[in-house]
């Protein structure tokens, strides 16, 4: 990065570190933080949408649809989430490849599951064997996002379902008395009012989501955990210009501090949001604000 970095052996401590921390692999390390933030930015709305769909179908009057929604919400609880992460990545990958296989190679006769193997025709492979490295990486990241969205969608569905039930029933009855259909009642009365009730649960979920991001490592994405392990390991002068001992402890200490700072900032921001949403509401939070303003 800097001009004096050409020969690191001769540098003093400070300059050595300034070169070490800005070399090529460290740039990949910093880039992986962006990956984590991107995952959060994409997953949060998608999971919310999944959760909304789940909560909506759980409320449905058509029994099978309601079972589907309730089952989706219930099944992810009770089983360790990490098992779901490991499960969905393989299951989704195989589901995509199987579907493509059925469409692209209809005259393939061999069974797909041969003993311990999962074989599809080469046109159906995802990503194609010939595609460049970045396609593989993006596909892995895409699978991770879908997996996170499915698992966290179930959590969000649970919270939203609770929020929908917390809306005072009189509101819905009034809407019915005015002659609104079920659909109108849902979209015009229930949905606008449920957010205040769902927000504490959703903000808790956001914190949980932040703390789940290191699990990306298990899904085979080159994330911050991967790079911290890579970069922290002992390096000898044979392979790098910056030899050092086992520094993994310090790299993980840095990750720990990063997450602590991130959750702290989110906590403060969500607290502000709650203050804002409570303003003028007929809840204890809103009442406390009113009293403060009067006194």
């Amino acid at each position, binding site marked *: 990065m800097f001009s004096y970095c050409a020969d690191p052996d001769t540098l003093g401590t400070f300059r050595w570190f300034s070169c070490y921390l800005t070399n090529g692999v460290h740039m990949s390390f910093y880039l992986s933080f962006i990956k984590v933030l991107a995952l959060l930015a994409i997953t949060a709305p998608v999971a919310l949408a999944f959760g909304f769909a789940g909560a909506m179908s759980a409320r449905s009057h058509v029994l099978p649809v309601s079972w589907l929604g309730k089952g989706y919400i219930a099944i*992810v*609880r*009770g*089983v*360790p*989430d*990490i*098992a779901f992460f*490991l*499960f969905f990545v*393989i*299951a989704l990958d*195989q589901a995509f490849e199987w579907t493509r296989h059925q469409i692209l190679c209809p005259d393939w006769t061999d069974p797909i*599951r041969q003993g*311990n*193997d*999962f074989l599809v025709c080469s046109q159906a492979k995802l990503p194609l064997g010939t595609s460049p490295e970045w396609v593989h990486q993006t596909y892995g990241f895409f699978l991770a996002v879908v997996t996170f969205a499915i698992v966290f969608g179930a*959590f969000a569905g*649970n919270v939203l379902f609770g929020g929908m039930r917390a809306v005072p029933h009189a509101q819905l009855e009034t809407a019915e008395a005015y002659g609104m259909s079920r659909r109108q009642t849902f979209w015009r009365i229930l949905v606008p009012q449920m957010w205040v009730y769902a927000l504490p649960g959703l903000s*808790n*979920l956001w914190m*949980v*989501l*932040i*703390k*789940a*991001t*290191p*699990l990306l*490592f*298990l899904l085979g994405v080159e994330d911050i*955990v991967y790079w*911290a*392990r890579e970069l*922290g390991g002992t390096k000898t002068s044979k392979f790098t210009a910056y030899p050092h001992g*086992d520094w*993994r*402890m310090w790299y*993980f*200490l840095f*990750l*720990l501090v990063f*997450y*602590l700072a991130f*959750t*702290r900032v989110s906590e403060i921001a969500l607290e502000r949001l709650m203050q804002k949403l409570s303003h003028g509401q007929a809840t204890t939070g809103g009442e406390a604000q009113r009293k403060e303003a009067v006194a």
Partner: protein
Amino acid sequence: MSNCLQTIQDYGLRSLGYGERLLPKTDFTLCEQFTLIGSGMIWNIYFGIMALVTGFFLATALALGKASSNIWLRKPAEWFIFLFRGSPLFIQFFFAYFFFLSLKKAYPMFDAFTSAWLGALIVLFFNTAAYSGEIFYGALRSIPKGDVEAADAYGMSGWSRFRRVIWPTMLRLAWPAYTNEAIFLFHATTLVFFSAFPAWRQKGDALYYASYFADKTFNPFVPYPILAFYFILLTLVVVGIFGLINARLNRHLPTAKKAKMRFRPNLVR
């Protein structure tokens, strides 16, 4: 059937290192998968119970510390809780492992800390203590004022007031949330062998074996549902035991006022 009994004999205690040394390599039967994953559950139960029992006492101390008016007690408790609740358990495992590894290099007596049975247990112990400490702290603050005043009126103070009034009420109020925390802790034990702690001689937990089978067969649809089955069973047992304790904590109350147990874990930490 006799085949399966043989498998159970060979692999039933495999996770502890007894029985057959090599894991099955080909032609996995359903029985093998059930046995090995079940054998791995021993570790999940060990980590869960040990961390819960030890964590309970530290959690009580942390809750009292956080509610204390003395700044020298309050600040450390607050920081401890923030440190372990604000960061991912996964990263805590990694950091602890590499920390113990460096300690071991300097002082060989820390050898045991780098293996999962002790090192990971310490992390889980601190972690659950922090989460339960926050739950207990919340309960401590919502103890009805009248209860404490009544204790004062009876002339109780200090230890006897804590032991007879404050502590039981705190537990009673915190118990539903604490049940969720316990479930959530058992689920968290699956992270141990997926973070840095090595499964020495393939002695791993349930998820370790489940992912072993999924990797070998490319078929996630058998081992993970088996794992799910075991965990749902474990969850039901935990809910049952904690429900009994809850009934005992609430036994002096009229039926209508008893705290309802609600199963509502929030899984990832």
